[in-house]
């Protein structure tokens, strides 16, 4: 801090520090603390707030554990988000490897631009695109029926549709970290492994993937967090049987009218995501500082 003061003088330094404090205290910490406060209090009519019944408890969180439907949806959101992350990894890994190790400079610059373009386009529009493709009388069913692969249209809306659209939406968050990690691998290492007789499978599992561990962990963390916190894909592409935890939270706020329970549910989602982030980074021995690059 002394360095900042020496560099920019008292006036500017004070302004910079004040701006940062407004952000961290007012926009990051205070809202989260207030959310925790809400989550731990009961939902009371205005007259009873501050009265004898207004005490802290874990009742709202216990409600989630006790409500069978909500609990099922919560658990399902966790494993479905993990599935989204895994699928995104499988879709991205080969192309990331090719871009980092095999592609020529010209191929790379074209492919990078082509991959980035769809991700400048809004998530709602990308979801809308899948909504149109997966429609019951839509193009995908028509193509599959013309090819004779299916006889009657399939109802894609539901888990399958949500998975397809989410993987689509988060490809870049997985692809770029993996690409960056593999790019730093010396080509000679792969060749050495091959000369020593390693099969392609072993080259990837024993040389490339361990080297790219940090990038893969970063991709997983972001994809999982984005999937678990997504609202638009399940809302537009889901079926009644494929509800997402964020939809339950939304209902507490805007239909159920119980903000305290909504806050408790949101808190659970936040803690879940933070836990996944920290555990994944710990396992892969990645520093948080390297994640945001």
């Amino acid at each position, binding site marked *: *801090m002394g360095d900042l003061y020496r560099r920019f003088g008292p006036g500017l330094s004070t302004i910079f520090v004040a701006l940062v404090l407004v952000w961290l205290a007012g926009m990051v910490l205070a809202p989260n603390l207030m959310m925790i406060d809400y989550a731990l209090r009961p939902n009371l009519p205005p007259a009873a707030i501050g009265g004898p019944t207004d005490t802290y408890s874990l009742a709202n969180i216990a409600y989630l554990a006790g409500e069978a439907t909500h609990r099922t949806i919560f658990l399902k959101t966790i494993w479905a988000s993990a599935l989204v992350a895994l699928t995104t990894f499988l879709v991205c890994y080969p192309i990331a490897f090719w871009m980092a190790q095999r592609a020529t400079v010209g191929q790379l610059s074209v492919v990078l631009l082509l991959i980035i373009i769809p991700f400048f386009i809004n998530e709602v529009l990308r979801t809308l695109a899948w909504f149109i493709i997966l429609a019951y009388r839509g193009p995908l069913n028509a*193509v599959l029926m013309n090819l004779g692969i299916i006889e009657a249209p399939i109802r894609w809306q539901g888990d399958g549709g949500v998975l397809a659209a989410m993987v689509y939406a988060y490809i870049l968050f997985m692809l770029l970290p993996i690409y960056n990690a593999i790019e730093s691998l010396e080509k000679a290492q792969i060749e050495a492994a091959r000369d020593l007789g390693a099969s392609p499978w072993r080259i990837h599992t024993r040389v490339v993937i361990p080297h790219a561990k940090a990038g893969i962990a970063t991709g997983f963390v972001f994809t999982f967090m984005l999937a678990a916190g997504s609202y638009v894909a399940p809302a*537009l592409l889901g079926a009644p049987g494929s509800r997402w935890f964020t939809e339950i939270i939304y209902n507490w706020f805007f239909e159920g009218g119980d903000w305290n329970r909504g806050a408790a549910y*949101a808190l659970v989602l936040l803690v879940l995501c933070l836990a996944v982030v920290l555990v994944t980074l710990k396992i892969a021995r990645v520093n948080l500082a390297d994640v945001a690059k």
Partner: protein
Amino acid sequence: MSGSERIFNALFWLYLVAFGLYLFAPLIIMGAAAFNESRFPTVIPWQGTTTDWFAAMWADRTMWQSLWTSLIVAVCVVVVAVPIGTAAALVLTSLHARAKGFAYALMVSPLLTPGVVIGISTLILWRQLGIGGGIFLIVLAQSTFIICYVMLMVMARLQRFDRTQEEAALGLGASKVMVFRRVTLPFLRPALLAASGLAVLQSVENYNTTLFVRGFETPLTVFIATKVRTGLTPAVNALALIIIAATVVGAIAFEIARRRRAGRPSP
């Protein structure tokens, strides 16, 4: 080339084509459906080519209203996020190692927080103060995480900054404020412009956070999502096609500018 390698190569190119199809088919189909006469947006069956849906979209007053809302929010987000993000980058780079780790974790935490949670916590805090959802809260909630992106972009640029330039200006008798205005800020200019562009894009495209703090406002993403649920016609595709065209042109211009700058030694 051995036989198995040839098969492997063929499979890889097949995968590459499938990947390209997965990436672009949805966007192409969505765009093409804007020209189909069918009332529900699709490309099969093709019921005749028309541009009526563009006219229908153009005449939709609620669409213009939501576009306006999104633009106001985006401008406000730039005004809030770019100065704070820049200040955060400058403060962070001058901290000592131990404090830095903690401050950094706190400063990137909004990126690792689900968007819905940012919206919800902002909504709850400001209800305590008697302020409900609306443009003000949308700007605050979006800025909370967009500041992180600005900070990271400015920090990346600061790493290439030669501090002796500041010292030289000080030695020549410039005041510290003058050094900041005439040396540091001009050096950061490209990063600030890029960060502003990214902030606008992030703001306009945001849905998860905005949904909770929007109050009675209907920004563009909310408008589109509502249309999908209540009465989707190809007019929405016409809007989507225009937005896509604008973003693609913008993305290519941004990339070209970035590569041209990257090819030139920095000033």
